[in-house]
């Protein structure tokens, strides 16, 4: 029987110091590989949403590789966009922190067609209501 499982990965923490937000991206991306364990017609649909200090994850030009030799969460967001994951960012939380839309990570550098969607929290609320599982990071 066809079944779609929707998962919302809610990222609330800033990108560095805790592995927590990074796990959201890697888990969301890995959910696609879970398809090998699914029956025909079954599908996992992950969505990433940044709220609160989680919006710092999608600020562009993160130079973590230059200074510490590590992949930044900006890279992970770009990869998520590359594999067509939906990435939502809370408009109010961006504005509260003075981060403009032109400061956000751009997946097109890696060839992604998807872009980050800046949406009001009410849209993220709708995603929370529509999803089967909510995972907080």
């Amino acid at each position: 029987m066809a079944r779609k499982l929707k998962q919302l990965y809610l990222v609330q923490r800033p990108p560095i110091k805790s592995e927590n937000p990074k796990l959201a991206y890697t888990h969301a991306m890995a959910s696609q590989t879970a398809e090998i364990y699914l029956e025909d017609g079954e599908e996992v649909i992950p969505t990433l949403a940044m709220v609160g200090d989680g919006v710092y994850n999608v600020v562009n030009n993160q130079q973590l590789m230059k200074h510490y030799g590590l992949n930044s969460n900006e890279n992970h967001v770009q990869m998520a966009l590359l594999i067509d994951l939906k990435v939502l960012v809370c408009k109010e939380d961006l504005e509260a922190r003075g981060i403009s839309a032109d400061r956000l990570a751009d997946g097109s550098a890696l060839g992604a067609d998807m872009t980050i969607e800046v949406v009001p929290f009410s849209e993220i609320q709708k995603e929370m209501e529509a999803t089967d599982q909510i995972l907080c990071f």
Partner: protein
Amino acid sequence: MKLGVILSEAVRTEETYDRLQAEKLSVVLAGNGIYHAVSKKNGKASEVLSKKADFYVLTEDLESRGFTAGDLVDSKIKPIGFDGLVDLIMDQHDKFIWL
């Protein structure tokens, strides 16, 4: 006492910082503490910056998070590298604490 403080949390869970007093006080914003230097939440700069102190921000941690010296919300915050941090610790203060 000449005291240096490294503040590395974006969301503070301690109250020590508010109580600190020193003849010379320097605050180094490092790690996630750099968000106090670049964010104006709802138009207001972080209360961390209201303390009477010399403020520094670690450039490596600023840039690692996608920000530059041009994003600092107050000109009293001076960007420094690890070498500058070593000078602060070794030459300019009696003690350094990490909150």
